[in-house]
């Protein structure tokens, strides 16, 4: 059957299930859960997979899922990923009143796009024409937050890596996958409907604990060692480093104090900071990370406090796969018009954020395009869906069409993508690299 007919059939199937698909995004929006806590979200996806008859494995990397749909013939496997987790943003209109969790990054739409694409591809006339498999993967914990809890899971042996894709790579969930994609939502300042290409920052995560000495803060402050002062000096010092970062390196240093004292009348003796060191290259991250460490230790030195710095392997910069992106862009252009596509060069860091799709992109061809359809500021309290058609239905169609291109005609295009791509590293090399980035340091200021 002609490829265009296959695409038309897939689109028609998606349109028929429009409400069912959008309902997934709405349902997940109402039950926001942070990374590795996506119990209900995972159940929603599992039920929906059941409804379309996709057998799947659950509880991969705690809450992840994976179902594989096979085409009429054998061939490469393309993963369509849906991230499941939310961030925490206080005051977001859809935030959970107890946890503050909120889909202020639009991940709720991703499983809907994934399942919507599956609906299109599983139209019987379509599926039998495909040579290869579609891996539908619900992936936890893309937002690298709640560092202390994740570090505890790591220390308990329940996690080997502290983000969803990292952990699913480690567990082998991507071993049978040849290439992967997801569509992330965005708020577009203009008429742009899809953005492809570009790269993202990589990062490392800092879990920092200042240890001082408690004392009555009014009666005997001279007997205390103020860990909050140590943290403030350390963070002030971090700020002074900003002028030393090159614009090209897109360095971002930011973090939150998660514990800053227990009683106002007791010298803070246990102050904790979760921080992020982002940069466009591994070298830039290492340079900025060393400066941050130096500054954090200086805080401890100044006050005679102690500081524990755990450096946790964060994300690698995104390597967007051009051949794969080209296929996606052609299909997106067909649906929304080429003038509504933005194509970023491979060294253009989009924003300054990071994603663990960057990690996956180091071991296989990956794209991480953005769809519009949202309004507001990502991770802000005003980031909300504006248009489910553009945020979910159109992306589902573009994904389905992209996979039809890749896997029809004996998967010639998918095989071409694979043959034209030389991944930076193998899975064992990736695991060794990331495990090697984990560092624990204990510094006594005196």
């Amino acid at each position: 059957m002609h490829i265009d007919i296959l695409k038309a059939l897939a689109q028609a199937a998606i349109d028929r299930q429009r409400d069912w698909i959008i309902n997934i995004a709405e349902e997940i929006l109402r039950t926001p859960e942070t990374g590795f806590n996506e119990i209900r979200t995972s159940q929603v996806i599992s039920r929906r997979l059941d409804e379309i008859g996709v057998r799947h494995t659950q509880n991969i990397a705690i809450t992840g899922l994976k179902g594989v749909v096979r085409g009429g013939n054998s061939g490469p496997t393309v993963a369509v990923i849906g991230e499941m987790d939310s961030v925490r943003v206080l005051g977001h209109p859809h935030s959970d009143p107890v946890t503050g969790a909120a889909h202020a990054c639009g991940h709720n739409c991703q499983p809907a796009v994934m399942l919507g694409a599956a609906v299109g591809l599983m139209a019987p006339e379509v599926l039998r024409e495909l040579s290869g498999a579609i891996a539908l993967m619900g992936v936890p914990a893309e937002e690298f937050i709640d560092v202390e809890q994740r570090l505890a899971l790591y220390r308990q042996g329940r996690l080997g890596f502290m983000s969803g894709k990292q952990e699913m790579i480690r567990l082998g969930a991507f071993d049978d996958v040849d290439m992967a994609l997801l569509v992330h939502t965005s708020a577009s300042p203009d008429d742009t409907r899809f953005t492809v290409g570009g790269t993202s920052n990589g990062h490392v995560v800092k879990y920092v604990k200042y240890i001082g000495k408690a004392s009555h803060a009014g009666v005997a402050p001279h007997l205390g060692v103020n860990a909050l002062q140590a943290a403030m000096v350390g963070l002030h010092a971090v700020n002074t480093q900003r002028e030393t970062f090159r614009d090209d390196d897109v360095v971002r240093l930011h973090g939150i104090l998660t514990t800053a004292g227990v009683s106002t009348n007791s010298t803070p003796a246990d102050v904790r900071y979760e921080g992020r060191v982002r940069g466009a290259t591994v070298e830039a991250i290492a340079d900025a990370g060393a400066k941050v460490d130096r500054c954090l230790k200086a805080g401890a030195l100044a006050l005679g406090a102690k500081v524990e710095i755990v450096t946790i392997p964060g994300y690698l910069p995104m390597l967007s796969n051009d051949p794969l992106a080209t296929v996606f862009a052609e299909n997106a252009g067909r649906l929304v018009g080429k003038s509504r596509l933005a194509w970023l060069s491979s060294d253009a860091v989009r924003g300054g954020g990071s994603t663990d799709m960057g990690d996956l992109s180091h071991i296989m061809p990956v794209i991480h395009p953005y769809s519009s359809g949202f309004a507001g500021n990502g991770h802000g309290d005003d980031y909300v869906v504006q248009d489910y058609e553009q945020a979910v239905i159109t992306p589902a169609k573009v994904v389905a069409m992209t996979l039809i291109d890749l896997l029809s005609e004996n998967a010639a295009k998918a095989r071409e993508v694979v043959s034209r791509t030389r991944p930076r590293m193998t899975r064992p090399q990736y695991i060794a690299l990331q495990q090697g980035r984990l560092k624990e340091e204990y510094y006594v200021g005196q």
Partner: protein
Amino acid sequence: MARMNVAEIKAAVVAEIDRRGDEAVKLAKEILANPEGGFREHKTSRRVAEKFRELGIPFQDGIAITGLKGMLNAESSGPTVGVMGELDSLYVLGHPHADPTTSAAHACGHHAQIGSMVAAGIGLKAAGVLESLSGRVALMAAPAEEYVEIEYRNELRKKGKVEFLGGKPEFIRTGALDDVDIAMMTHTEPPLHGEGKKLAIGATNTGMVAKFVQFQGKAAHAGGHPHLGINALNAANIALMAIHAQRETFRDEDTVRVHPIITRGGASVNSVPADVRMETFVRAKTIDAYLAANRKIDRALRAGAMAVGGSVTITTLPGYIPLNQDRNLQGIYEANAVNLVGSEGVAHMGHRTGSTDMGDVCQIMPAIHPYVIAATGVGHGNDYLVADYELGVKTAGKAMALTVVDLLADGARKAKEVKKSFKAPMTKAEYLAFMRSLVREETFTE
């Protein structure tokens, strides 16, 4: 001439100061008009020398560079009482009597001290007085009481011109006080709480160490290549913040004072500052307290350098010892003060948080450092003026001269008693060893 009794001697002393005291006032005003910073008081020293010559007082000059010591009754074998004055000015921009070139200004009233010292000398040289006393009087003009220009004085130290950076420590070291048994000096002061006070006794003062700090960074174009520089000004900035973070650990009773200035903050605004210098004192009421605070300050300074990846050279120099005046000597002075200004005119002072090298003198001999309330404005401010020269020079001179009379009359009985009951906190050798133990020059790169 027959020996006079104490009342007669005192009457002669007072009459002589009333008769010739204007000479001392004139000298004070000349010095006011020619202010010079410590160890630079060459003109001031020459003026004092001229005055000694006029009065027929044999003297030595060039002690501790610019200091002088005149001797009355040199042939006497009795105890020696030192009456002191200070030669140096401060530097205060905008003071009405500031030197337009150097901004040196007598904003601490030292010119009046030379006046009161000379007034005392005039009184004691009244006919028949010295013959009636059993001991010698040393009129000592000491340089450099204000511990400023640390970098300049440190150079003098390195060239071997001085060992300590204050005038009286140098007087002690060079032996100028070896033949002095008891010392006193009167400092001017603006009005205290409580009206009508003219002379004030009993104060204690903080002691201190002085620090000269050099942060070393690396110059680079501040716009073009800030990432290639190491910002020493940022190091200093972090260190200052870190110093402030220590303040809550200082006990009220220790009256710790740390008040740095930046003496060099960079060379050009478009070059990353690579050489930034600070001076500070670390003061406290007790030696232990300022040494403990000093350790915290060192930590903070090191933290600044550490944070930016630079280095810091910390030169710690002995400053002054906390002032503890001799009670017995003070009792004698107080009786004379009451006779001169009435009991309602005599104030008892508490602890003060400045420092003076009379504190050092007090370590090795009984000494007092009363204040004369003859000034207006804020000490070390641009409005500090000696307003009442009658009081500040003549009355202050009388009070000291009369105290000398009490000490040395009657076979110097009281001087011997004061000496005998004095328990020296340190011998001269111990004092010098302690001062030398404080000297440190260390470079930290961490």
